[in-house]
């Protein structure tokens, strides 16, 4: 190892809980505790928690905070206090830098939660764009710890620690005071289940972890998180989305609002959309046993048609994957996925694989 891995404020707690720690984009994080399958089951049937302290928080404050966000986001950012909006940060070419959620704290203040691997790039991008606006962007990523509490019983459990959170609407944020400090709770997640994500300063996050452990919440790692998010049809930025793909190609056309007056990448997206897209992100389900992985080749009518960007074994659906293939390959089409030199039959299916209860 040539570099020191960054540790979250929950690193020691994860190790103590039996986490198998791995390098994830420069962070030392648990890939699993006892079993990915058991952790997946806990989240689908009860409640599990994930250390997501590596994720980033950017605070945007100022008279033109909303204007800056509308300019950087391809989606229309909601400006009612407490409302959150999922959006993509695009390049001028309309390709994806990151996906994120902007939460409105007030008409002049927003909290933007971004992917860990993109914090520096997102912050630099916002700062660059902010020069034209009356606004201040602060990178608070290093000071926040964050736990994703997910599963059908997650919100009920959260309500024991944060009374009233059960009434927080989906995709909304609430400021909280816990263990004597201020933090935030959002009714969001990356698993396809109901749940909350709780942000507290680093010094207090372990107290929350321990409180949730006492309430019987199962610690879960990145392995289960990846299975859950793929089942739920969520993109993994850096794998399923990157700066060569537009939201349209990434099966996220709904995130783009071309009706919006102006935003970065709009002109490029209009032109690209008019020209059409050669490839699109499609979902696949194996018809016989096997585990598809990122990088596996996809064949259509005997010809190589694309490559998987994510794939896994789902306890619910067996071998599932997504990858970029020719746009015209429709749902229901038969393809083959090459796994360790063996061509395995698969079907193009709709996403999400898992229709959630949220």
């Amino acid at each position: 190892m040539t570099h020191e891995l960054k540790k979250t404020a929950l690193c020691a707690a994860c190790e103590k809980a039996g986490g198998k720690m791995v390098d994830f984009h420069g962070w030392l994080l648990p890939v699993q505790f006892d079993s990915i399958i058991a952790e997946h089951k806990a989240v689908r049937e009860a409640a599990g928690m994930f250390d997501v302290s590596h994720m980033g928080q950017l605070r945007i404050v100022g008279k033109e905070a909303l204007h800056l966000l509308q300019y950087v986001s391809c989606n229309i950012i909601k400006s009612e206090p407490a409302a959150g909006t999922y959006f993509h940060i695009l390049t001028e070419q309309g390709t994806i830098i990151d996906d994120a959620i902007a939460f409105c704290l007030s008409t002049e203040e927003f909290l933007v939660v971004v992917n860990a691997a993109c914090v520096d790039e997102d912050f630099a991008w916002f700062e660059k764009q902010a020069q034209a606006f009356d606004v201040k962007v602060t990178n608070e990523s290093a000071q926040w710890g964050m736990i994703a509490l997910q599963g059908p019983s997650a919100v009920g459990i959260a309500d024991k620690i944060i009374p009233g959170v059960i009434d927080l609407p989906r995709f909304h944020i609430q400021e909280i005071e816990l263990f004597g400090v201020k933090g935030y709770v959002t009714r969001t997640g990356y698993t396809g289940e109901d749940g909350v994500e709780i942000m507290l300063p680093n010094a207090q996050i372990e107290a929350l972890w321990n409180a949730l452990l006492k309430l019987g919440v199962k610690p879960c790692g990145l392995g289960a998180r990846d299975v859950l998010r793929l089942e739920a049809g969520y993109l993994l930025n850096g794998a399923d989305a990157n700066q060569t793909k537009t939201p349209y190609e990434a099966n996220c056309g709904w995130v783009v609002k071309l009706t919006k007056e102006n935003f970065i990448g709009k002109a490029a997206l209009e032109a690209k959309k008019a020209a059409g897209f050669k490839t699109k992100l499609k979902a696949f389900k194996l018809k016989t046993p096997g585990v598809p992985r990122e990088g596996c080749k996809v064949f259509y009518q005997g010809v190589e048609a694309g490559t998987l960007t994510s794939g896994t074994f789902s306890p619910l659906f067996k071998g599932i994957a997504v990858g970029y293939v020719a746009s015209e390959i429709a749902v229901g089409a038969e393809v083959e996925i090459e796994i360790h030199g063996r061509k395995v039959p698969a079907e193009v299916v709709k996403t999400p694989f898992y229709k959630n209860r949220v």
Partner: protein
Amino acid sequence: MYNEENCRFLKTHEWAFVEGENAVVGISNHAQEEISDIVFVDLPKVGRTVKVGENCCVIESVKSASEIYAPVSGEIVAVNEALNGDPALVNREPHAGGWLFKIKMADPNEVNALLDLAAYKATIGK
């Protein structure tokens, strides 16, 4: 059934248990713990000829794929069909019902070149 005391090992965690002219092949308890959550075993075809050290089987867990190497040379004469319906047998019984395949040995002396249990344990720091 294939008690580890009576097995010989590769550094890559495969074991071989001599049963007449055949070697039964599996993975060690340490290996199944490390791999965890085995969800699919891509077994070799019966009749295939393998050389010692040849990659001839893939064990898939949720998080990764692990290649399995032949501990001895010879012909694959049987595979553990039970793993097709219950791959997690390898996790539960790595030295019994979770065996992978049997090789009819081309040269029974090759087994002597494998690690005994003590030497294998030393390689995994146990």
